[in-house]
């Protein structure tokens, strides 16, 4: 009976406490972040929109308002469908590669083995390498068709070396991006696995579940939420891949590895075409938000 005396607090006390909670005003806490992001979003957006209707090239006298000319020029470019396709291909291929290997590596590194601590340090090393550096290293030291290490390996087996950036440029870029991002995925999933309830795994094993059943019915569902987070973050970064392309293929051969950011950079910024670049920027924002709408929103809902 002692418990009863303690536990349900008298109605008055409870309401008083709720009031106290409600008195925490949230807007002063939210204001700095919301304000900064609002300015950061609206000002460049409005300016970009404004320039996208201007005939403004830094190399020639401004033409003023040109209506939809910049958009017509952009949307009638025969290369555009391929550029959009490449952008989505990079996102989907790099996502599936990094998450596939990320899950495997996380499961592997969740088990104890000799020297695991040091091995884990080595696995996460690529995450600390800046994109320009990793692209340069892969391009010159590894994938170069004459002096690269891969070329030497295939020659020693008597196979003609692969000219990665000429013959399989998209694959080469996806390999580089995946190498950079697998450590991040592994680290997040590994962390999540370490909070997996060991008793549950043990119980499943007692009930006769093999390693595969355990993986598919316990481990994988447990990883659902972190995988959703990873998909969301990676989509944001993969949509704007830029340095890796600039350093390795420069978008080529032809348009084979040109994605939307690089397309804007090469078609407009290099030509000092501020109007065209702005129209391209608006186009990129629209595409990114379509992807966000279908892809990220459904995932973000689960969070």
């Amino acid at each position: 009976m002692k418990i009863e005396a303690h536990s349900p607090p008298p109605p008055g006390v409870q309401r008083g406490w709720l009031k106290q909670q409600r008195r925490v005003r949230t807007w002063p806490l939210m204001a700095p972040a919301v304000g900064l992001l609002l300015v950061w979003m609206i000002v460049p957006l409005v300016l970009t929109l404004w320039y996208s209707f201007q005939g403004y090239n830094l190399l020639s006298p401004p033409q003023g308002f040109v209506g939809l000319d910049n958009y017509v020029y952009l949307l009638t470019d025969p290369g555009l469908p391929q550029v959009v396709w490449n952008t989505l291909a990079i996102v989907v291929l790099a996502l599936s590669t990094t998450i596939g290997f990320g899950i495997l590596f996380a499961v592997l590194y969740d088990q104890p083995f000799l020297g695991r601590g040091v091995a884990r340090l080595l696995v996460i090393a690529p995450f600390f390498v800046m994109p320009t550096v990793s692209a340069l290293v892969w391009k010159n030291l590894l994938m170069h068709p004459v002096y690269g290490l891969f070329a030497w390996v295939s020659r020693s087996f008597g196979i003609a070396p692969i000219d990665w950036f000429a013959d399989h440029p998209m694959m080469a870029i996806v390999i580089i991006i995946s190498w950079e991002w697998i450590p991040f995925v592994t680290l997040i999933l590994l962390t999540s696995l370490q909070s997996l309830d060991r008793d549950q795994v043990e119980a499943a094993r007692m009930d006769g579940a093999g390693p595969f059943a355990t993986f598919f019915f316990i481990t994988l569902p447990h990883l659902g939420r972190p995988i959703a987070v990873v998909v969301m973050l990676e989509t944001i970064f993969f949509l704007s891949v830029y340095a890796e392309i600039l350093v390795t293929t420069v978008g080529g051969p032809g348009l084979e590895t040109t994605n939307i950011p690089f397309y804007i950079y090469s078609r407009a910024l290099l030509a000092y075409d501020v109007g065209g670049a702005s129209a391209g920027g608006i186009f990129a924002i629209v595409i990114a938000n379509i992807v966000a709408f279908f892809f990220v929103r459904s995932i973000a809902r689960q969070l």
Partner: protein
Amino acid sequence: MRPSTRWLIVRTILGWLVALVMAFPVFWMALAAFKTELDAIASPPLLFFTPTLENFAEMNERVDYIAHAWNSIAVAFFSTAVAILVAAPAAYSMAFHPTRRTKDILLWMLSTKFMPAVGVLVPIYLILIWAGLLDTRTGLIIITLMANLPLIIWMLYSYFKEVPGEILEASRMDGAKPLQQLVHLLIPMAAPGVASTALLAIILSWNESFWCINVTAVNSGTLALAIASFSNPEGFFWAKLSAASLASIAPIMVFGWLTQRQLVRGLTFGAVK
């Protein structure tokens, strides 16, 4: 041999194989940094050679390493510190005092990340000129801060969400006021999450290349800019390129390795389960 021992051996071999394959490009670059230019392109590739420090000396002649490194450090740490100060109250308020619009605000914040940097480069460039911030550390700090802010808010929000409600409930029952809860419960419990968020933000800003290539030059260039100036060498300068690469990633890699446990502990949320 007992099956458990056999599995331990299999796991050890697999684990090390994966580790060596993943780290190999970095290792190979580090080797090339100490080779002469001729050794760097030798076929068959040289694993053993007479190391030289010549490349580092030449790199330092071409770009002022210390100045670039200092810019990288200043930008990464300042932008992260300010971003955390701005993000933490917002994330706290959304995690513990959610309103009907909290989910929408979070999604909106993330949606600012869906503006490709290339798309808004021109206006931001013009604004920087207008504000006199082009090629200044302040300008780059502001941009990096804004680029990382949405992610920082999201990470902090998800960490704060993981603080178990029962503990807060219990402290309320004991009569703790919101401020007391904050100081004695939330801050200690959220500290690992804040630390790991900060580490991630520092790593992301250190590696950020697009903005620093486009809005900085001699005065405020970071190491990412320094390395970009090596990206189109006439002829083959792989050893010098490798030396510059190694010098620009070494600080953040050592930092990442040293703080690795904290990074992971932050993600697991330590003892609070």
